[in-house]
């Protein structure tokens, strides 16, 4: 038997008190970890979107926000597909590629999934990452490459062909949904009970596209009963023209649509991320206060309840240092459990809520375990300073006289 065992036995003796004080710490740390994890992956997603999107202008229905668009493109509001012709016929310079899409929520092999209708050729041009087989850090085609230019990556030729000749009963699967459903190219798949065949599995892009199924735009329009309607147009505009009067021209040509440039999208998303970051700081302060008070309260109560035991230990020959060590060990254990528990709860929260709240896939980040434990242990130690000081200063004679 050693001191650690005594502390462990004592901690587990009154579990209710322990659990109550831990809940505050675990919840606080969990909220911070969840917010920070989602923010981190959201920021990362922006970078990936920037690299992968290729398109730098979005045309959306008036009532749809960029946030809605990034959440899953799902909105009752649509715009006419003829907007594409309106743009092409407007004589605006700098329009390289227009990629319309319509999304719907559907049951794919019984699993609720977003199915996005695309024009395969245009979508392929708008998604450099599909060509680059996941090399998201490669420069997108952008303005420098005219529409219809050959793929840079020779291996992508096959994929380009597959995508461009996507049959009406064919679908493309994002890498995540393909893994989840266990489907390979050539496999049969049911979308809202309608049979399709997997034409190809797209390379991972690190974006919401990984969790989607892509089908012909006309097919999704038929299945949703929204013939000639679309949710959005992703447009590749020439950089120079964007900075001149392309956006103003688009606004004039499409008065009932919302035209957003990537710059706006990024700034919107960054504003959201900054807000989340500030939220996490606020939560950090709250947890420091609530968790600290909770632990201090537990430690005060613990010292009070254990005062006779402290007296016994001192009578048996324990030094003040040993009494101090016992309570510090207790505080460290509380901090460790709180930190690890908070990290696990926060990571689970982020993984579960990330896709639904921010339309991003979140994975647990190990570095946050270190931060969580460090914050929690330091908090626990700081909150225990006064209670431990009191424990050490207790007069064993007085405590032993108490019945």
């Amino acid at each position: 038997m050693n001191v650690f065992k005594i502390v462990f036995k004592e901690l587990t003796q009154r579990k209710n008190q322990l659990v109550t004080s831990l809940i505050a710490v675990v919840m606080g740390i969990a909220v911070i970890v969840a917010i920070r994890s989602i923010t981190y992956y959201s920021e990362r997603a922006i970078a990936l979107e920037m690299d992968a999107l290729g398109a730098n202008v979005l045309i959306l229905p008036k009532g749809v926000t960029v946030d809605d668009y990034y959440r899953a493109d799902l909105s009752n509001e649509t715009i006419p597909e003829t907007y594409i012709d309106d743009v092409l016929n407007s004589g605006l310079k700098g329009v390289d590629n227009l990629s319309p899409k319509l999304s719907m929520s559907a049951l794919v092999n019984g699993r609720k999934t977003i199915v996005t209708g695309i024009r395969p050729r245009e979508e392929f041009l708008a998604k450099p990452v599909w060509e680059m087989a996941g090399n998201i850090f490669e420069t997108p085609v952008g303005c420098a490459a005219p529409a219809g230019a050959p793929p840079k990556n020779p291996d992508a030729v096959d994929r380009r062909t597959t995508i461009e000749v996507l049959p009406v009963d064919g679908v493309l699967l994002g890498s995540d949904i393909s893994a989840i459903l266990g489907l390979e190219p050539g496999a049969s798949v049911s979308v809202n009970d309608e049979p399709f065949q997997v034409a190809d599995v797209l390379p991972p892009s690190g974006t919401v596209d990984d969790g989607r199924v892509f089908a012909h735009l006309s097919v999704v329009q038929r299945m949703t009963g929204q013939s000639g309607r679309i949710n959005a147009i992703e447009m590749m505009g020439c950089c120079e023209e964007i900075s001149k009067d392309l956006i103003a021209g688009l606004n004039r040509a499409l008065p009932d649509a919302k035209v957003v440039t990537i710059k706006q999208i990024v700034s919107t998303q960054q504003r959201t991320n900054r807000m989340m970051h500030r939220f996490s700081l606020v939560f950090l302060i709250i947890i420091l206060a609530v968790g600290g008070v909770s632990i201090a309260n537990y430690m005060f109560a613990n010292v009070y309840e254990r005062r006779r035991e402290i007296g016994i230990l001192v009578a048996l020959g324990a030094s003040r240092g040993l009494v101090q060590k016992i309570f510090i060990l207790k505080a460290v254990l509380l901090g460790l459990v709180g930190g690890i528990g908070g990290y696990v709860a926060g990571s689970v929260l982020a993984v579960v809520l990330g896709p639904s709240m921010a339309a991003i896939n979140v994975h647990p980040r190990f570095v946050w375990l270190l931060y969580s434990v460090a914050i929690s242990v330091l908090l626990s130690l700081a909150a225990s300073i006064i209670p431990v000081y009191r424990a050490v200063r207790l007069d064993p004679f007085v405590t032993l006289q108490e019945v």
Partner: protein
Amino acid sequence: MIQAVDLLKEFKLGSQVIQALDGLNIEISSGEFVSVAGPSGSGKSTLLMSLGGLVRPTSGRVLYNGVDIYAQPPNWQARFRKDTVGFVFQQFHLIPYLSTWENVALPLMLDSSHSKQHKEIAVGHLDRLGLGSRLDHKPFQLSVGQQQRVAMARTLVNDPAIILADEPTGNLDPSLATDLVRLLKGLNKEGKTIVLVTHSKEIAKAASRHLSLREGRIQETVNKPRKEHTP
């Protein structure tokens, strides 16, 4: 030998100052068995705890083999309590969430050492006191008499030279009290110094010297006449 020299101990209760010991002097030889009696508040427990290094006197000194224990650093005092002194309390003061053997082994692990021998030593003492079959029981699962024996085993586990017993029979029935006194006498015969605080005149008779305390002073000292050894 343990000595108290001009021992004065005052406790403050708000604005009131209570004098528990009032310039008390006492000298207890090694191997002596001393009983201490007196009315409540006469300073018996304070004297006992002061002798054991647990209550620092307001003034005066406690000398163990000539060393002023309260002039020593705190760690020395802790070692003194651990290695030299064994306390026996009326309330037993067992730790409720530790098993019988863990309670007994408690003084052994205060060095922060981790040794498998702790259990062996504790079990040896419990066996000697007839509690070998109760090793893993918690204190609340034991009878009062068994709890007192566990407390005694804990006191003896470090083989202390001085045993300071504060009304150890106060919660025991007469038969258990007699057993305990017999045990203390046996330990005294083995050479241990015993200071026993008791209200019972019968139990006090077990000691070779009896002190009566009143208002923090020794009122009376009665030395038990030595029995002449007849061949």
